């Protein structure tokens, strides 16, 4: 049963004209949109476009049977991973996410070839072809996966934050999860411990509005997900996840808070996925018009393109980048198709680290 839409007004009894302050607790400063240089705009554009083209290609290869199993595409959500991860310190911060993970890896500069080769199940894939779309890791980049169980990455990410604090290395963990995972119990177990121990973690809810086929309104008693940390005293922020500069700006405000030792922040990024939940989603739970309206009005890449033009970057330059990205993706796809499958002996490797 669908619940009533969120009310804008308060309870039936008369309230004073000025609402009582929600809380007098200290909270992160109000974020401002990031003031990007033209070079930074180009970098964001390049990274977001790479994710989009990569994912389109992945969808195509799936259709051709070169990618199997489950394959969850990030198309539409590009500004989230790029905006947030651009604010992190790659040398000390760590990132963890769920199964919709290709975009986060690309945003971290991991070679598209080894990601695509993992999707096609080849030896050259980042997990030697043994993980697939949902299970990819790069310890070198402090990217800790790539987890297939909805919500598990939130507890695991809290553990990464615990390790940062334990070692005193100054790092912050960023744990991404979706609006669907936001209803898992372990998320709240993690919130509790993270705030209790003031762990350096940013919880990121990528609210793309549908948990598979179930909309936030049909699944969430509190559908303003950034408020979900309130009873644990975790400050929340709601951010336009279709605007990379808003995302980056909010990430900086959140990082200031966490790096100051004040404990976790919960960010809700309002975003949208254009494709189905996975490749095998018939998407009958929303209308074609709804998807098209988001693409037309709020597309993060189109929005960024406008800003680039305003910043004096020429259409030709943008076209040049488009062409480069297409080339990078085409090469990744060629590599992923031609690379050999794992040796059969790989079946038995990596089960355990040590010999007993």
């Amino acid at each position: 049963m669908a619940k009533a839409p969120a009310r804008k007004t308060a309870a039936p009894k008369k309230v004073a004209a000025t609402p009582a302050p929600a809380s007098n607790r200290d909270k992160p400063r109000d974020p401002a949109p990031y003031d990007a240089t033209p070079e930074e705009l180009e970098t964001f554009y390049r990274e977001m476009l790479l994710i989009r083209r990569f994912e389109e290609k992945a969808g195509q290869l799936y259709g051709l049977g070169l990618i199997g199993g489950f394959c969850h595409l990030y198309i539409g959500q590009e500004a989230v991973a790029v905006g947030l991860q651009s604010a992190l310190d790659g040398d000390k911060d760590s990132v963890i996410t769920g199964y919709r993970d290709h975009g986060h890896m690309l945003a971290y500069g991991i070679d598209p070839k080894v990601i695509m080769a993992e999707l096609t199940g080849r030896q050259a894939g980042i997990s030697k072809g043994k993980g697939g779309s949902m299970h990819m890791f790069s310890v070198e980049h402090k990217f800790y996966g790539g987890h297939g169980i909805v919500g598990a990455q939130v507890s695991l990410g809290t553990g990464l934050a615990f390790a940062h604090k334990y070692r005193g290395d100054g790092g912050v963990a960023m744990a991404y999860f979706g609006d669907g995972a936001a209803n898992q119990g372990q998320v709240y177990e993690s919130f509790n411990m993270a705030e209790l121990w003031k762990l350096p973690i940013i919880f990121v809810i990528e609210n793309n509005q549908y948990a598979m086929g179930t909309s936030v309104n049909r699944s969430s008693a509190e559908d303003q997900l950034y408020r979900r940390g309130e009873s644990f005293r975790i400050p929340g922020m709601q951010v336009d996840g279709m605007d990379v500069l808003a995302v980056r700006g909010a990430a900086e405000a959140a990082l200031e808070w966490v790096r100051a030792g004040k404990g976790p922040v919960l960010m809700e990024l309002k975003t949208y996925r254009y494709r189905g939940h996975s490749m095998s989603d018939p998407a009958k739970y929303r209308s074609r018009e709804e998807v098209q309206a988001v693409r037309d009005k709020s597309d993060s890449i189109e929005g960024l393109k406008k800003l680039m033009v305003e910043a004096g970057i020429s259409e030709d330059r943008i076209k040049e980048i488009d062409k480069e990205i297409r080339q990078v993706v085409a090469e990744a796809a060629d590599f992923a198709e031609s690379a050999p499958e794992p040796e059969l002996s790989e079946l038995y490797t990596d089960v355990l680290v040590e010999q007993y």
Partner: protein
Amino acid sequence: MAIELKMPALSPTMEEGTLAKWLVKEGDEVKSGDILAEIETDKATMEFEAIDEGTIGQILVAEGTDNVKVGTVIATITGDGEEAAAPVAAPAPAPAEESKAAEPVPAAAPAAEKPVAAERASDPAIPAGTAMVKLTVREALRDAMAEEMRADDRVFVMGEEVAEYQGAYKVTQGLLQEFGDKRVVDTPITEYGFAGLGAGAAMGGLRPIIEFMTFNFAMQAIDHIINSAAKTNYMSGGQMRCPIVFRGPNGAASRVAAQHSQNYAPWYASVPGLIVIAPYDAADAKGLMKAAIRSEDPVVFLENELLYGRSFEVPDIADYVLPIGKARIMREGSDVTIVSYSIGVGLALEAADTLAGEGIDAEVIDLRTLRPLDTATVLESLKKTNRLVIVEEGWPVCSIASELAMVAMEQGFDDLDAPVTRVCNEDVPLPYAANLEKAALVDTPRVIAAVKAVCNRG
């Protein structure tokens, strides 16, 4: 340049589908994201989106066509000249009737060669004249953790009541005082959360020891033990490790009834990627706990509440570490092999003493590690005694006992002079009433009876 549009695979199992409807016609301009057609799969009707920009050239499969094989060219698009939009030269899956044959792994693929298990290390020799000290299992476990914490500052202990309360069963007694609250961490009652937190901390480079007050509560957390800890190294192609110890009491305690009395050894021992240890005496508890903490692999360390207070001799050696994966012959014998682990070893030894008085010379093996299982030691003993009895404080169905019986069938069949026998708990949830509880649990008389039966001395 024409791009071929092929019948897409829209689910992991789809082999063919119906081209229900074209939403474009020849000559239409399309761009990425436009819906081209509706395709009915084995599960649902799906929209087929354009990926490339261009103009629809030819439509090759008319709408309403059924059983269109995945990979069949259904239309062409004339590209806008960008070379990168070139079609994917897809070798697989081949179109139409060949699609079956084009499965990525041929049905007759040669089986991969299983690696041969390396010779297992033996227990370290105990030098002559080594003093033995009497320690309870509880103290041995505490000493092992304390020693490893002194040696490696990445090691920390976390769980419910491990710090200020000094451990619900006093296993972590004194650790808070020595190591402080950074390394001995009381958690809220939140097993799923702290098991996941521990696994994440291990992935992030620490060496967590996660205590479950009992393993009954670990069922709340079993997803992290199995999906997060056990599978990570494999799924990451050996890139990401999860060196963690999950420990706590396991099995029946005393009069706490069904929800608090279960042996999870067979559950965890069935999972590739885990190490499972279940020691009996204090020396093994100490030596194996130290090995578990040092292991690069995730370890499930199953203790037993009823053994915590029992005292055993422990060699007074600095850094007493035992090999994981090695069974221990507790008593040599020639007539029958009794194999057990954890609290069952005590029953087996008692039974062997009684049987000796009746002229049956039983060999008793403590498995100690349940995964990887030291089948070599069991089979070697079977070769000598030709009779095998397995004693397990746990349910009989899908047990360590059933696994060992299978090992004996597969690898020791010719050595068997009698059917393999198991002595397990009754196949019921553990009852509360004292008489029913007693009736449900394995005991020494049942072991003796089973041994006599396989020795034809019933």
